[in-house]
């Protein structure tokens, strides 16, 4: 089928989309946006997280067809090219990136969290990010990055 959707603010039309093709596959293999990652293809790890009409979802669990005429935002669309949004900058400053495979999904999830809860506690952070697995960092510096991003966005206060 032919699919129309908006990705990172740009209208896209994709032909020959399979009925059982996932949004993840559409983004990576058809549209060429490889920033969203495939690490489990069953919604267990959060590496494929994107915004669908402003809601954080696992793109491996959304059918491409279900995104027809909808608005998708991926990690590539969080900030204009050549710039970093406060969450991305905070990840760098806090040392929250190692292999980085989980990073795009986490940046989306943290972005979503801070928009909803501007100054989250450690518990709120842990629960909100429980669907994002990381194998390298042990999570501590990602939590630090969330607090840093919250402060940077002008919301936070020191100490958790």
């Amino acid at each position, binding site marked *: 089928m032919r699919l129309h959707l908006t990705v990172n603010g740009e209208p896209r039309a994709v032909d020959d989309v399979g009925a059982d093709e996932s949004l993840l596959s559409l983004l*990576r293999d058809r549209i060429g*946006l*490889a*920033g*969203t*990652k*495939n*690490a*489990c*293809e*069953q919604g*267990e*790890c959060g*590496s494929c997280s994107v915004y669908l009409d402003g809601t954080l979802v696992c793109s491996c669990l959304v059918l491409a067809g279900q995104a027809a005429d909808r608005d998708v935002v*991926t*990690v*590539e669309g*969080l*900030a204009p090219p050549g710039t*970093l949004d406060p969450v*991305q900058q905070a*990840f*760098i*400053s*806090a*040392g929250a*990136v*190692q*292999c*980085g*495979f*989980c*990073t*795009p999904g986490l*940046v989306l999830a943290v972005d979503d969290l801070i928009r909803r809860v501007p100054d989250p506690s450690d*518990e709120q*952070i*842990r*629960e909100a*990010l*429980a*669907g*994002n*697995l*990381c*194998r*390298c*960092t*042990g*999570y*501590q*510096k*990602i*939590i630090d990055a969330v607090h840093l991003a919250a402060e940077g966005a002008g919301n936070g206060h020191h100490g958790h």
Partner: protein
Amino acid sequence: MATTVTERAPGTRRGAGGVGESVPRVDAVPKVTGTFEYASDLRAEGMLFGAVLRSPHASARILGVDATAAAALPGVHAVLLAADLPGKRTFGLNFDDQPVLADGLVRYHGEPVAVVAADTPALAHRAAGLIAVDWAPLPAVTDMEAALAADAPRLFDFGNVLRHVHIVHGSPEQATADVWVEGYYETGMQDQAPLGPEAGLAIPAADGGIDLFVATQWLHVDREQIAPCLNLPLEKVRISLAGVGGAFGAREDIHMQIHASLLALRTGRPVKMSFGREESFLGHVHRHPARIWLRHGANRDGMLVAVDARLLFDGGAYSSSSPAVVGNAATFAAGPYEVPNVRIEGTLVFTNNPPCGAMRGFGAPQVCFAHEAQMDKLAAVLGMDPVDLRLRNAMHTGSVLPTGQVLTGSAPVRELIELCAQAPLPEPEPADGRDQLRYPGGTGNVTRGEGLRTGVGYAVGFKNTAFSEGFDDAAAARVTLRLTDGVPVAEIHTAAVEMGQGLTTVLAQIARTELGLHEVTLRTADTSAGNAGSTSASRQSMMAGGAVQLACHQVRDRLAERASDRILGGGETLPGPVELHDGLLFADGEPVAGLADLLTEPVAETAVYHHRPTAGFDEHGQGDVHVTFTFAAERAVVEVDTELGMVRVLHVTAAIDAGKVLNPVGFEGQIEGGTAQGLGFALMEELQAENGTVRNPSFTDYLIPTFLDMPPVDTRAVEEPDPGVPYGLKGIGEAPSIVSTAAIVAALRDATGRELNRAPVTPDDLIGLRGPRPTSGPPPVPDVPGQWPVPYYHNRSSTQQGLM
């Protein structure tokens, strides 16, 4: 080959981005913006996709294979079976015992039988499913003790023992002690579970060779195995490192490299292979399950007199790096303690279980789990504080290992233990009225504080850095210094693999410190650079770092020559020492030239760094087998719901023997991450194989810790420089993984009073529904020709010079 390396960095201005600073990662921006290219993101014009048909059986004969239906499927470009292999038919890190494609026999669940190249991944998998295999299942040996029986099915003609290591030190037969403590311990099969599954792209080249882009851990050893299987000379196999989504040992062995290359050469098209999560679990090696019998003898004053250790490791179906794993485990089996009388018998067997190989810690986590449990048991019997017992027996510089090797490097074991013991404990929380997430069981709403008990546990351990038993795993690096827009820029080129641990950042920091400049670039790691050795064994900061440092010194020396020529004319040299900082060349403390002035032409230098030589085990297991050692201690605080067996790890303190912390934030990240993997191994991670068949190859049922499972980790570094090593540094990547599992289980024992002799611990164990695993005693020591792996005595070719 003599090497001189300075151990202390010459002075650099603060904030200059050199050694010792928390410099942000060089690859951070692409990683947070999603533009960093991992192996699974690669694409090439006209590429095909490869898929593997894998054995559903743990042990079976292949009576026939019919690939006609698969080959006939439109969009399928190649189907390859064992009969189609153009070159060598096997590969392996130590012994080439592993078939590229199974030929008449499979030895493990998941063993590759055929490969397919097709227009789309879905087509390739569908075609693989259409290959009809006539299987005759065989009896499988899936218990490591059963594998030792004389009548056990044999995986190879020489039997099921791959290696047996025998270590005797002092007089263990005659040792007398006031108390003896015995214990039996088991550890399960852990998986590295890197977030990025295996992937790579093979592109056939005009010269008949292959260009391979792959996420791996050792480019050159991959090439040595790949080329013969493709029937190509080494120089026609060119490998470039693609972005690696974590490794932790899973990528030391060949995974898709040969398969993709074969398909690319057959079809004349680029071929990409990218594993899903299930295939990733089946397609790489795992941590060796172990059974360990220990007997500790000590006197009333707490001093250890003797340790008797019997180790049995399950290597699975192929040898991989197992020979080195058991060698390592054996040398560390008594722990970082002074013990005058030691006997260690370490056996590694083949079974039809999934093949095991390198995983962070390489045998040390298993023995640490056992020896630390023994130390706690001993403390209880002696009525002594477990910290005190460890302090009394702790190794230090000058101590002698069970192998007779003297610790000549730094060994601040006492200090590590004391740091953990003296760190403040977390504030106790009242049992009721908490936020739900501060109870064991997390979001499950299973408790309001009923049955909670807190426990504290300690563990101390150690491991070698770099390769052992005589292996000269040198590392090469090339540093080129040139002017770009008037600014001196250093370019580093090594084959050393960055897999997330932060190596490339550290190498850049070293170049900045040694060359006194700021701008550093890194070329992609590929086989046009010299062999850098494996990114494993916590070795690359020392080895690739040492090579970069050496190359920088050679660059400095070339610059000094240029400055001499320019200032003094031919024949004379500047007074020393010559140092570079702040963009200037200093001779005997005086600035004599700007770097920019000396770089009318670039300077390029290649260096190879060798560590000090090591030896093999003699017939008593004695020898200077390892290069150097890193020690670690952790203290874990846990809370257990003793009625349900739910656990919340409250806090971990980690004290690491770091030598010199090269990048503090990077260092903490490695310790926190390694501790998380150890927590997983203590509480939830086990790849379950039933009669050799893997039952949980998915993230639904192979569980790794989430945000709600990990506590804060308080990391402390002891920086006592290791002599004769760049910056006095120690390799720290594996340090936290060695001790974290043991510390957490020790804390669980403290909280519940249960024996808990197996990792991972289950809720059944914690509530007493299941008792400690029983044993009928250690198996007899196998009869082997000597200390080396058994195939060596049967003239099986070893792929590498000596052992890994």
